[in-house]
């Protein structure tokens, strides 16, 4: 057997750089050189990935956030998310799958590809590796690689940053001997034990008499050592492309405006289109989710009246759909999912170009729905606020109507209207200090007043003794 191991040591950072570059594709310089970026793992309080600019300042992998911040206060920090990175790795595997079928995903940043059964199709080792390397460079990921007789051995060599394609067993053996034990998958306990007796290199371990090791270590350790030697080949679960489309994209920076999200969603739609085209499918619904730092995830479906596969159709629908959305806080990542597909049939579809047909009307309805929402009827609902302006809010699909208090007017004006009629006060005052955190500060005494026609209104007097109406009672 012969496996190569691709160790993608900065997938999250690569994804960020790629997104930033796409965003600045108008010709701006490579962002890598402009500002320092680090990927930070909050669980371990360690910097785990960083770009050149960050390295230049003196930040290193393993630094804590405080130390990194002390070295450079303007550092751009991307929080590490293992699930996101695993997703990126899967995307990479999807990309490589047409070239090599036996792929094994390893953790969140490594994948192994079996080579020995592919060599005959590519006409030799060199051609095979060049093909794979070309695809990896197109994917714009940084990686270390090496090949060996088992995934475990190749992984150690890749972690050692060997970056060489070996053609003989002897070469692999020599390369392995140079590697540090810390790179192996031995348990931390075993590594520590070995280190504490001065054994730090794989060579020292492989030179050790087996019976001496047997007295001191368990079977798992001995088995692992035999896989490193290439004497045992453990089974591995091969990667299978998923049956639905799921793309998560961590944004290079926080985005507050939905318009600015469009270029990123477009990238995801491109991948969706690629996915659909490769499978001769189209779809009538996709699911978009916005992720925020603190606020809960915002999910919404986008539906088309008829199945689509082109980027343009979905992009126009999505643009309309997200346009009115008010973001509670900046978006940090976007997920695009699609799990309902229709087969393309020859009558209704020609997936090589766009088309226009009689169902355009439905498309318009779909657009209107996307623009105005699935249900454009609203009902007032009591909000958790003392202030009359904010006391009722309009919400969709609310089952019950409720008032915040017994003096809440049925209809509240968003901005008060000057009181023009003669009224008589029948209740009050209710004193309200406004919500100072909104920026302005005032204190008002509200009254319920009645006009000569029996209309009851909520009124107040401002500081210049002008009376205003805030709402009306039914």
């Amino acid at each position, binding site marked *: 057997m012969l496996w190569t191991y691709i160790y993608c040591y900065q997938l999250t950072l690569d994804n960020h750089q790629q997104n930033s570059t796409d965003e600045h594709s108008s010709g701006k310089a490579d962002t890598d050189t402009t500002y320092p970026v680090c990927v930070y793992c909050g669980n371990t309080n360690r910097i785990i990935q960083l770009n050149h600019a960050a390295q230049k300042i*003196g930040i290193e992998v393993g630094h804590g956030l405080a130390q990194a911040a*002390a070295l450079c*206060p303007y550092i751009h920090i991307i929080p590490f998310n293992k699930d996101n990175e695993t997703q990126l790795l899967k995307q990479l595997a999807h990309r490589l799958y047409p070239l090599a079928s036996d792929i094994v995903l390893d953790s969140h940043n490594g994948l192994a590809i079996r080579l020995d059964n592919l060599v005959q199709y590519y006409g030799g080792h060199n051609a095979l590796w060049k093909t794979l390397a070309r695809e990896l460079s197109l994917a714009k990921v940084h990686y270390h690689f090496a090949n060996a007789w088992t995934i475990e051995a190749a992984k150690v060599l890749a972690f050692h940053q060997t970056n060489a394609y070996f053609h003989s067993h002897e070469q692999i053996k020599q390369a392995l001997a140079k590697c540090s034990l810390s790179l192996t998958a031995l348990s931390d306990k075993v590594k520590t034990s070995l280190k504490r*007796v001065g054994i730090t290199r794989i060579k020292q371990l492989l030179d050790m008499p087996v019976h001496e090791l047997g007295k*001191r270590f368990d079977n798992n350790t001995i088995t692992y050592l035999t896989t490193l030697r290439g004497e045992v080949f453990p089974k591995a679960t091969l990667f299978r492309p998923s049956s639905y489309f799921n793309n998560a994209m961590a944004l290079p920076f926080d985005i507050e405006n939905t318009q600015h999200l469009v270029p990123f969603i477009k990238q995801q739609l491109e991948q969706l289109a690629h996915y659909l085209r490769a499978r001769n499918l189209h779809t009538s619904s996709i699911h978009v989710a916005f992720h925020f730092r603190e606020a809960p995830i915002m999910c919404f479906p986008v539906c088309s009246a008829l199945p689509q596969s082109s980027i343009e159709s979905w992009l126009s629908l999505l643009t309309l759909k997200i346009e009115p959305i008010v973001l509670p806080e900046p978006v940090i990542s976007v997920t695009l999912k699609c799990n309902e597909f229709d087969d393309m049939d020859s009558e209704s579809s020609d997936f090589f170009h766009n088309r226009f047909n009689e169902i355009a009307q439905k498309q318009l309805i779909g657009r209107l729905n996307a623009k105005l929402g699935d249900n454009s009827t609203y009902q007032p609902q009591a*909000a958790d606020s*003392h202030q009359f302006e904010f006391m009722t809010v309009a919400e969709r699909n609310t089952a019950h109507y409720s008032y915040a*208090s017994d003096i809440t007017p049925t209809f509240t004006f968003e901005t008060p209207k000057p009181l023009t009629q003669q009224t008589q006060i029948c209740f009050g005052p209710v004193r309200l200090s406004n919500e100072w*955190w909104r*920026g302005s500060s005032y204190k008002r005494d509200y009254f319920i007043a009645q006009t000569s026609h029996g209309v009851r209104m909520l009124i107040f007097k401002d500081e210049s003794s002008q009376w205003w109406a805030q709402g009306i009672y039914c």
Partner: protein
Amino acid sequence: MKYSELFCQSHYSFLCGASSPNELVTTAAFLGYDAIAITDECSVAGVVRAYDEIKHQSLPIKLIIGSYFVFDRSLSFVLLCPNKQAYSELCRIITNARRRSDKGEYALAEWDLRTIRHCLFVWLPSGNQAHDENWGNWLQKHPNINTYIGAQRLLDGQDHHRFAHYNHLQTHYSFPVIACTGVLMHHADRLPLQHVLHATRLHTTVNKIGRKALSNTERSLRPPHKIKKLYPEKWIANTNTLASQFTFSLNELRYQYPAELVPKGYTPRSYLRACVEDGITKRFSEGISSDIREIIEKELTLIAEQEYEYFFLTIYDIVQFAKQQGILYQGRGSAANSVVCYCLEITAVDPRQVNVLFERFISKERDEPPDIDVDFEHQRREEVIQYIYNKYGRERTAIAATVICYRFKSAFKDVGKALGFSESQLDFVIKQINRRDRVIPWQSQLAALGLHPDDTKVSQLISLTEALLGTPRHLSQHVGGFVISAGPLYDLVPVENAAMEARTIIQWDKDDIETLGLLKVDVLALGMLSAIRRAFQLINKQFPIPISIPFITKLGDDQQVFDMICKADTVGVFQIESRAQMSMLPRLKPQCYYDLVVQIAIVRPGPIQGDMVHPYLIRRHGNEEITYPSKEVKKVLSRTMGVPIFQEQVIQLAMVAAGFSGGEADQLRRAMASWKKDGRIFEFKEKLIKGMTDKGYDNEFANNLFEQIKGFAGYGFPESHSASFAVLAYVSCWLKFYFPVEFYVALLNSWPMGFYSPSQLVQDAKRHGITVLAPCINQSNVDHSFLIDGQKKHIQLGLSIIKGLSDGAAHQIVKGRPTNGFDSMHHVQQLQLQRNDLQALASANAFRTLSGSRYQTRWEMMNTQASLPLFDHKESETHTIAPPSEAENLLEDYASTGLSVDSHPISLIRRQHKFNDISWANTLVHKKHQSIVKVLGAVTGRQAPGTAAGVTFLTLEDDTGNINVVVWQATARHQQKAFLKTKILQVNGILEHSPEGVIHIVAGKLIDRTQWLSKLQVKSRNFH
């Protein structure tokens, strides 16, 4: 119109009230209230502040003591204290409710309500008819509870419901209705702060509190004319009638000392005299001189006049216990350095050596309570605490509280969170803000961190943080201030649980205690006392001399010891061991005990900020004439050459030069102590300067004095404490000079304590020619010890220094060790020690005499088959593991024991690299002043004192000694990477010799050399 507010919470209702008791009473008096009740939630923590404010400002307002309680969702009420019995009842109820719950919580039981006899019960109906009827019936059935209905009008749109409800309850149950507000702020503009506190309590943001928040500012102190419009006349009249019934004042509280201290047949006075006379025979065995007798009589008279006998006897009793148990102690404080205290064996400061005037410490005119703090050995203080608890019982003993207030970081973070800033952003900003930067205030630094002050939210963050600073957050435990009383303490003040198990605290802090004239006994811990006691024991084992602190002080000032001090050879000794103290020693050149008193006090922020160090040194060396502006000033300053060094001198100056009365001087002293919190010291500025100019002192002198007072504030060091510390400093120096091996062993056994790590102490010992032996399975005891080898003594490190080795295992090894020692690893394994313990021993290379190297030891220990019963015989290892290199050994030594006796990291680096141009610590003395040098060492200390305007002092240690490096702010800023991270540092800089022989390197270039020993775990004492 008359009005009294009977329901008012201060910021001692934590995260609820938004104003201080002082602000509340001042504002209420300004508005013309007749009385105000401070009714914090299940607490009387704020009442003393209010009482003190009314007393000192002579406010025309009556203070009513009370407390607000929430029984459950259906019942809340206020208890008010019309008389002393009611006050004791309230304290008991609060104590019971608090003691049932964890720290900071409380839980009332129905039983508590049933027992109310004297307090007035102001019921705050919930508005829920079913609940209120239930409680109305309950209260009606308990006629012993004097119930009133507290009516609140808050203009929130619900008043009409509430008023109807109050009327209904009043008609039904006939409880009188009184008007109350439920004040949470003294002024309406505190609403935002109240919202922030509320949001913090609910763990949410201000914009999400919603309808739970206060909707308006009606819960502030409202002018009586407005109150008149809001409530029916009858209710206001009821309130005023009720308020007029309150007669209780805090000045009625009489503290009574435990009576059991005085044996039958004695009065406190006669017993104290008997104890003193007894002490005289011990302390002055050779007879007492007439002038000392005269001082004693004078002191006893003063104590009798002030009725402080019990206080002295209480402390006498505690120190007698310590003495019996062999626990070393030393008293300090304003009264401790009296001859009476010397006779009572509270202190070891011999009055014949120090010209101590008792009056200097206790002043009848100033009416200060006597202050005696007693330091005990840090590892045995708990024994003393347990003795106090056992002797007086837990009902009569509790520790004073410390009010933990919002500081910058906590205030900024809580306000930020309440305003909706993300926690990660706040953490980042807090880390970036340099609070020591005197040029750019933190408010301005925010802009550089992306928070522009023009932004509304940011300006709110700034103003609310400023408002929150200094606000109490919770009560905590004082370090050792005990309050002991004759009867149950809860008659006097509520007692609640502290965070530490089996500890209770009272609800007042030391200022409150002082205000009410209660006396507290400070039982503190001091590491150096443990070390000195251990050194004494080691010396006693060899020489039959009655060595003790008084024994050493009686020998008089030893010139050889002072010579050592002048050379700053003071690593490990008490107080004068820090970098700053050590660099001052060759300049001040102490020659006698009193010089040490000055030395300890002078290297403090107070004298440094007040620019007093340099004038003192010039005058001391005779380079400047000593002048005094007046005779009175001369009397105060003559002992410190005309320069105020001690806190007492500053206070005395205010009295003699600015005409402060005793009471005013005491206020000034207290304002100095709390300057950082409330800035009250500025209230005295005008009076002080005017007083001095009126008395003919020039304006410059007056302004200088005020600056000095400001410098002293919070940091001033009293002579009374310095005098006691100087004794310990001298004794530790004496031990270091005459019994260095015993001294180092005692220090190492008492660690953690002091300024230096064991590694630095060991390096210092080695520099003094003492051999230090690594921990060994066959040689070491549990503690560090010394071995006598012919004429020489060596330090043998104990097993206790090995990290990860359990105490039990260490004792087991020493106990199970054969006379000739263990002969093999297998032999040790038969002790059945835990695997972790064996590993720890191997890591420390304690088996070196048995297996050669730590690697081989571990390899043998890893063999699991060897421990099986069938293999229970000595199996010789066939496979030999290569021994570790010298560097690996060094790294493991540091990891396992924090030090290496075999080599120094720098000596190892010296062997690996060629250095032609590096100067080593012991050669710096031969370098020329202002010459350019390169030095290399392990960074063992980084200090950036607030007094040093951005300068950082680095201490580098090489194998020949310590090197003092000065890093200017700009240098540090431009070489931040090397400055912050480095463990092994090369500094290229300019050498400066001071005339007194102090050597500094002013850093130019900092080069990180950590990679030469990348895994070294040298501990640096950073920015403490």
